């Protein structure tokens, strides 16, 4: 039939897929994270990017400090209301499609800081895709969150423009 097992996608064969599934396959394996680290969780996030845990195994090692080149925002650390407007502005500057990971108790729900200055969960002003609990979460937990994002992209994708 169409697929010749002797030369997968070689000269003779071809694969059938949909355009969106093909695009989602590319998206999920080349996530470019925008690290938004504001506190101790950022240290753990750096550990995830570094050699021991090595997020590049999941195609997500290109940490870009420009939001215009990123499609995954990892918010790691306590977000105060003064920082929240900055965080929202950076999210708005990211091109579509984009995803958000809330890393750590503070970003998920304010953590121990039930105070006048701290946002009680960044979902007050950002659409969060994956929440990672922990204070701080283990690097494996953040890797799991990235894998969940990958699964979400694979299953739901993003609307093709």
């Amino acid at each position, binding site marked *: 039939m169409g697929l010749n097992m002797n030369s997968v996608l070689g000269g003779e064969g071809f694969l059938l897929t949909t355009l969106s599934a093909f695009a989602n396959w590319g998206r999920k394996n080349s996530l470019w994270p925008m690290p938004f680290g504001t506190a101790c969780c950022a240290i753990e996030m750096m550990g995830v990017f570094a050699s021991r845990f090595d997020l590049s195994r999941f195609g997500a090692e290109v940490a870009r400090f420009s939001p215009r080149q990123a499609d995954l925002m990892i918010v790691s650390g306590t977000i105060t*209301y*003064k920082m929240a407007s900055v965080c929202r502005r950076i999210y708005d500057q990211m091109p579509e499609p984009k995803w958000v990971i809330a890393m750590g108790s503070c970003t998920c729900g304010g953590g121990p800081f039930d105070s006048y200055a701290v946002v009680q969960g960044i979902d007050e002003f950002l659409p969060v895709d994956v929440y990672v609990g922990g204070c701080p979460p283990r690097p494996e937990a953040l890797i799991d969150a990235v894998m969940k994002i990958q699964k979400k992209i694979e299953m739901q994708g993003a609307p093709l423009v």
Partner: protein
Amino acid sequence: MSLDLQIVIDSLKTNFPDAVLDLKTFRGETTLVINKDKIREVCRYLKNDFDFKFIADITAIDYLGVKTPRFEVVYHIHRFGPEFDENIRIRLKAEVSEEAPRVDSVVPVWSGANWLEREVYDMFGIEFVDHPDPRRILMPEDYEPFPLRKDFDVRDREASKRSFERALEE
């Protein structure tokens, strides 16, 4: 050390007889309550004549419902002696009323007092007269309450939310 400290206190009392309102010693720490109108003169005297070069901290206390005047501005100043046991640290306090919460700035004496006084203004709303840059330092500039005052609920996030909304609109 105690001898040296006693000289400082005695000469302060002779030079500024109406400035030193009280003297407390507790566990080797000396606290002088200074008339708030004389605070800058006293600080300048201690710096120039006794080499208190270092302003370690400025903070404040809110004694709401405990005593009047309501606020105390606290200065920790330090002298680096030529020998270890000639290091002296003293604490100056200036009582500030609720009705007129302002005190002379000591930035002309120690420029390091600049951000410390801004923090006290930010948290307690105490104004520092002649401060070169009297803005908030930690909270947003359009934030209204003073969070460390005792009549402020520390869980009250409404003012923060308003500042956040305004920052988004810009």
